[in-house]
């Protein structure tokens, strides 16, 4: 009896390890930024208001959502963001991440201002059609702010608290399940009056 038990136990351990390995998404990398202050930046906005900085959001819980019109998965989550914005729970700020790709971005003939203009036109066109969930969007044409936030796969979503600390990060589209089971309870917890 004991002779069979040992291989059986070893096998069970192996199955557990492999099973856990199968369930994990290798693309999901734990972010070192959770629990740290949101990196500071100042970027031009989509509608041309004065440049936006995360400091402007001090005192409120907000969502920072990285998106682009070329990003297919962003379109997937877009209706959910629009729906969430309608509830007016907390503001969503958009980060338009490298809107211009390929030759549009590397075109040496067009000036930086022209590129910004082109990116704005494209983004506005998309938001007019699909709905605009954002309080405002900022334009990160070269992706350098994205690097400071550890962006590696759009869409990405950050939940930032009243003190400007990142409390949660999601890589990939936000699904209704994630919104209801993770993000909403977290908002409730963070949004309590001090």
């Amino acid at each position, binding site marked *: 009896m004991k002779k069979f038990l040992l291989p059986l136990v070893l096998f069970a351990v192996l199955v557990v390890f492999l099973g856990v390995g199968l369930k994990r998404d290798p693309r999901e990398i734990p972010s070192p930024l959770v629990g740290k202050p949101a990196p500071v930046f100042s970027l031009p906005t989509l509608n041309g208001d004065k440049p936006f900085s995360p400091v402007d959001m001090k005192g409120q819980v907000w969502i920072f959502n990285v998106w682009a019109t070329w990003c297919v998965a962003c379109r997937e989550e877009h209706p959910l963001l629009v729906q969430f914005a309608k509830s007016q729970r907390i503001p969503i700020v958009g980060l338009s991440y490298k809107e211009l790709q390929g030759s549009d971005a590397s075109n040496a003939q067009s000036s930086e201002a022209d590129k910004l203009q082109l990116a704005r036109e494209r983004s506005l066109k998309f938001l007019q059609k699909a709905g605009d969930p954002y309080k405002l969007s900022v334009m990160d044409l070269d992706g350098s702010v994205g690097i400071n*936030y550890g962006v590696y796969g759009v869409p990405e979503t950050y939940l930032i608290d009243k003190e400007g600390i990142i409390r949660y990060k999601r890589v990939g589209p936000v699904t209704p399940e994630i919104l209801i089971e993770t993000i909403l309870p977290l908002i409730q917890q963070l949004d309590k009056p001090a």
Partner: protein
Amino acid sequence: MKHALLVACLSVTSWLAQAGEAQPMAQDPQVEARLVVISEELRCLVCQNEALSSSHAELAEDLRREVRKLIRDNKTDAEIKTYLVERYGDFVLYKPPLKPLTWPLWFGPFFLLVLAIGGFWRYLRQRRQLTHNHLDAAQRAQAEQLLKD
């Protein structure tokens, strides 16, 4: 998630499609040389089994640009790695740092090796005892008797 992967792969193909002109390499050969050495040890976040030095993913391109900038600012290798780890976590390093969380990773194999050697040694000892003691004096005499007959 699948879409994101698709986008990444498509953007790689589109990059290849327009790769007619050479990249503006070696503006400063010294910077490029250091870049290659450092980015060998860094992982591309999009194509996770590729080093940052050889990846064609767009993000890798951007990260190389950042690293170039840091090299020009005379940052040390350690500072550059810290810069990336602060943003992307230990995951960007091909060689994970030694800390309590990674102890099983670094020492686990040695622990298993010691365990296996111990087990093997015990097994050998048991076998030796088995071969040495399985006949006592009386049985031995009996066996000799049987052989004589």
